[in-house]
């Protein structure tokens, strides 16, 4: 297939040094490491998330377990904040990590750290559950976050606002837009209907809300 051969070989953009070579990681041909032989105890000490994800993309189950141990507890807590059904939350946690396994090869440190990537995977699982009717529209688990803001702390240079405190600095309308769509996984249409506002108004509130949160949380956000 000469016509498929370009004059200069194409490289996937942003392919990092730890990332697998093409074709993308989908299994086939990748030799799984043997726990206890390839990875002695503590082999991943000092590995940051990007390094672990690169290893997961190479289908390293030990790296995956370490990544799970590092993040599952917080993801579980976040899911419980979005959903009161304990069984569903456990299902969603599994779905999050199966997606991490599947998509690890697509993660690139250049697009932000792994925390943001994990957030979108986690929140998108909640969206999927809502769309499939597994999570009730009327779920009120977001109410605490949306309606009872913590007062902003008096800030010195050494202090930074928590997200909950930063949410408290938004208007009620902005906070509702952020908590329902961005965190809670409701669609634009559902949220606009619930708040009885036009779609454009909802998007403006969401954009402004995120901009303000970003500013309140500082560069370390």
């Amino acid at each position, binding site marked *: 297939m000469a016509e498929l051969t370009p004059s200069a070989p194409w490289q996937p953009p942003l392919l990092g040094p730890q990332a697998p070579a093409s074709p993308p990681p989908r299994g086939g041909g990748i030799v799984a490491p043997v726990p206890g032989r390839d990875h002695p105890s503590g082999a991943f000490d000092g590995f940051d998330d990007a390094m672990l994800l690169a290893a997961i993309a190479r289908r390293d189950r030990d790296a995956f377990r370490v990544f799970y141990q590092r993040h599952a507890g917080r993801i579980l807590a976040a899911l419980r904040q979005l959903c009161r059904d304990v069984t569903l939350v456990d299902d969603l946690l599994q779905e999050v990590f199966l997606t991490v396994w599947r*998509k690890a090869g697509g993660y690139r440190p250049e697009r932000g750290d792994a925390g943001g990537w994990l957030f979108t995977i986690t929140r998108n699982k909640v969206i999927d559950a809502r769309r499939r009717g597994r999570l009730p529209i009327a779920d009120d688990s977001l109410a605490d976050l949306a309606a009872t803001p913590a007062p902003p702390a008096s800030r010195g240079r050494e202090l930074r606002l928590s997200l909950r405190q930063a949410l408290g600095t938004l208007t009620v309308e902005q906070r509702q837009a952020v908590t329902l769509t961005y965190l809670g996984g409701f669609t634009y249409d559902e949220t606009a209907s619930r708040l009885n506002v036009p779609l454009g108004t909802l998007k403006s509130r969401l954009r402004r809300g995120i901009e303000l949160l970003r500013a309140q949380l500082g560069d370390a*956000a």
Partner: protein
Amino acid sequence: MTSTAPRHHPPEDFLLAHAAGQLDAGRRVMIEGHLAFCPSCRESFAQLIAPGRRWLEEQAVVAPKPSLWEEIEARLDRQAEEDPLAGLGAELPLPVAARLEIEAGGRAPRWRPLPLSPARFAVLSTDHRAEAALVIARIPGGRRFPRHLHLGWEDVLVLRGAFRDPAGHFQPGDYQLNAPGTEHEPQVDAGDQCWIVARYEKGIRFRGLRGLIQRLTAR
């Protein structure tokens, strides 16, 4: 491969919608593909998801049941990992993050000829709810993609090579958004074959003899 940063970007609303989890599967592929090429949009997107990252970081750890990890491992053991796009060739120039967003289903994509044209295309996925299709296409250098009319919105991402149409010159990573009613005949630059991935709604209508063939074969 050019090292030039993209000059044509998706609307900011698309990045916001992606950060808020509001995009359909086809447009997620398009935006992830653009992000893989575009440092400035990656920076914007990182800022949009930063509050979510903080929200996750600030959660108080809750210990999962030990059986959850065992179930995850058991599911990994059971599931087959097959690349649904393997039949399109190993050189498919689609960034990994975009490729992993493609929702497989139905028949495996295959290359098809476009009537009376050297262009080839493959349907990667269809979305009946959005009335949208996601396709990858390749057009030889120096040739035109046949004149056609868009019945709905079209998003185009250049993967390799370049083309020109009345909206401008589009190179790798560039994102073109065409409104319903747009009619064009993209001219590929001389030299490299041009690869694009495109999401279009409601279909496209070819002009002239190709249009006649299109209408006849659609019956």
